[in-house]
């Protein structure tokens, strides 16, 4: 994308003009929608508010706040999953499409473990301890799944054209989905009921306990991951392999072991996201990982693939946009059925960012061979 960008002073082509028109159109739609929404909030009888949608009623402050928190929560989970996509891409330069299914494995593991704990009476009597326990189990299972996936499906293909591991990852994705159907059945599985302090809203900021938990755990995970990658020896090895695997090997870094660590770390983040998903929605099915996986991949691209902070920022951007966008931008413009367009809004963010800033919000961090 960067290489395709028009050089300064070069003549504008038809594609350049088309992209410019698209950028202007995107900004105009967003601007008009926002202005109409603001006009609605000032006064619903405002002629500008009713210009495109005469039935517009606007949102109360509490409703708007609810949308923002819902988007941040969803986005935090996208961000956690996106870290795995971003790390693997940074090191190996291919998209591991099966990563969304690792997230599903985490949610399923949490469902099985929490129900076993509930049967034993521990879920109710010691919820916090049980929650920590299912998180640890899920992290271990997902890390192991990701490592086995790397060893069995991707390592034998190392060095082959990039399309081959990409297609393989799609195959691994279907394998994991179907393995879940065979082992656990096709129906949706429920998490046990959660305590009231998780289910109910708290007076502090008017947010449900589950959403506070998701935001805090995601933030803590992000900080820990950042510290691990930036400050530890293993993290430095990962960055070195991401920079240039051959030179890193010449410097004495065990590339295979480092790649395994990257998969394990990505799996751990997906496992954590799976548990948070289970606590928030209390339902999991074999296809749970598909759409969040695709959106998390989009988040990684939006943030700038290969950039950890960018992955989380991309996740939050997509989460908030899909939650807020339909009601704040599309409905004031008179678009019907806006709630069914949330996925479209999420992917429109991806297209919009690529149009305006092709390298993502924080810029791409590509392996050495991609930069040459």
């Amino acid at each position, binding site marked *: 994308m960067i290489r395709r960008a028009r050089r300064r002073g070069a003549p504008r082509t038809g594609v350049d003009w088309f992209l410019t028109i698209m950028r202007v159109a995107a900004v105009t739609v967003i601007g008009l929608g926002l202005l109409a929404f603001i006009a609605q909030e000032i006064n619903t009888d405002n002629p500008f508010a009713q210009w495109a949608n005469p039935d517009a*009623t*606007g*949102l*109360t402050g*509490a*409703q708007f706040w*609810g*949308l923002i928190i*819902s988007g941040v*929560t*969803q986005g935090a989970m996208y961000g956690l999953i996106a870290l795995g996509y971003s790390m693997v891409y940074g090191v190996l330069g291919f998209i591991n499409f099966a990563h969304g299914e690792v997230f599903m494995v985490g949610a399923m593991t949490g469902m099985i473990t929490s129900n076993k704990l509930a049967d034993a009476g521990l879920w109710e009597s010691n919820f916090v301890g049980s929650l920590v326990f299912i998180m640890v189990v899920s992290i271990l299972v997902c890390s192991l799944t990701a490592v086995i996936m790397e060893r069995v499906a991707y390592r034998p293909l190392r060095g082959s054209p990039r399309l081959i591991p990409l297609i393989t990852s799609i195959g691994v994705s279907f394998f994991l989905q179907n393995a879940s159907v065979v082992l656990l059945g*096709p*129906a*949706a599985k*429920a998490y046990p*009921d959660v305590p009231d302090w998780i289910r109910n*809203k708290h007076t502090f900021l008017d947010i*449900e306990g589950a959403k506070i938990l998701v935001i805090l755990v995601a933030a803590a995970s992000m900080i820990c991951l950042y510290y691990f990658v930036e400050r530890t020896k293993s993290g430095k090895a990962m960055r070195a392999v991401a920079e240039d695997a051959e030179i890193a090997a010449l410097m004495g870094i065990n590339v295979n072991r480092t790649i395994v660590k990257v998969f394990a770390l990505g799996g751990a983040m997906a496992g954590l996201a799976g548990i948070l998903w289970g606590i928030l*929605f*209390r*339902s999991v*099915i074999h*296809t749970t990982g598909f*759409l969040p996986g695709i959106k998390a991949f989009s988040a990684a691209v939006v943030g700038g693939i290969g950039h950890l902070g960018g992955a989380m920022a991309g996740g939050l951007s997509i989460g908030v946009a*899909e*939650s*807020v966008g*339909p*009601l704040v931008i599309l*409905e004031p413009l008179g678009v019907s*059925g*806006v*709630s*069914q367009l*949330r*996925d479209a809004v999420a992917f429109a963010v991806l297209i919009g960012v690529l149009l305006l800033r092709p390298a993502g919000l924080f810029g791409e961090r590509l392996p050495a061979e991609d930069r040459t």
Partner: protein
Amino acid sequence: MDRLKILGKTTGSRRAFTIVFALLAVFSLLAASCGNDDGVDIGDRGTAMGDGSLGIVEVEEGDAIQIRSLEAITGDVAFFGLPIDRSTQIAVADYGQIHGFDVDTGTSLDDLCSNDGGQAAAQIIVADEDVVGVIGTSCSGAAVAAAPLITNAGMVLISGGNTSPALTSDLAGNAGPNYSVGYYRTAHNDLYQGAAMAKFVFSELGISEAAAIHDGDPYTQGLAQAFADAFEREGGTVTGFSAVNKDDTDMVPVLTEIASGSPGALFFPIFQPAGDFIADQAPGVSGLENTVLLAADGLLNTNYLGLPQTAGMYFSGPDQRFGENVNQSTGMSAVDFLGEYETRYGESPAAPFWAHGYDATVLLLDAIKAASWVESGTLKIDRQGIRDYLNGVRGFQGLIGTINCDNFGDCGSSKITVVENIGGEENAETSISNVVFSYEP
């Protein structure tokens, strides 16, 4: 001289040949004019119904009559389709042979509760020309794709679970946009269900502002629209009408959209798992804290009723108080059926429409019996005869009550009930029969 004799003999033979050929041609024309349009020899059919216009299916001695079951038997809504599929198997076993021939349902097919699933399964079914009828589908969305394929192949499709008005009619003499000749159902038309829920909300609960959510499926959209129309006819106001995607998990945006109209009741006739998330997240959305939640027969199952967030919700659905109803053809009562079901499958039916599936199957078998005859050891089934029989069904006593088929294939009962969920996994089965409102137009 010899040469002349030879010529004369030759000329006589040609004349005889010409006469015989002409007679044969005349007989052929006469035979053709007396036969059916397709030129099929319909033989000695006695009182069997039909005119052979859709073709005759022949079942050789020792072979079985082929029918198929097409229900949602995997995935999120398997709880809904499996009881209907099992009812079909029980009905076939109860019914026994037809004119000395066994009935075979083959391997049960899956409609996946989707348009694509219905289409794929229907293509498999119509590839087998021996199939005479199909019981299914569970979901209206699947029937929209399956019905044209199956009925165009001369087969009939009888559903125990479809309720969308689009598949039959608006009950005012106008065919629905997806109606196919040869499609029938024993399930009710959702125009009744929508009217029942609207009346319950407006008159019984005293709520004058309500909203509805669907998921784009013909069943959910049709029922939500039927509710909205009926609610306005009652005198209420519909403050919001929106839709979700079937795989959405975060319902806060759509619930916020609905909350902006401050409805007193929210009707969401959708399926699991989306229904789980709406019931769970609605009380947390500002403006919906005290809104009464209502759903329909797509969520009326023990699994959903057992969820903590569904306690206190109201559900509309077919009147399941079958009491001592007996199917006139098999002699099976609803009580005996449930016993048989539990013996076979080790559980009670998880969702409604099991009785509808049983009656649909028996109707099909009765229709095959009425439209078939045995000739030289071969069973012949007139496809048009099956339709003729079903078109004429009046006053048939089934498990669901009295069955009458109208001109658009609606054969089901119009009795609808609303039940209240008592709450708790242990009370789920009791809740299904906790009727708080009954409706019959």
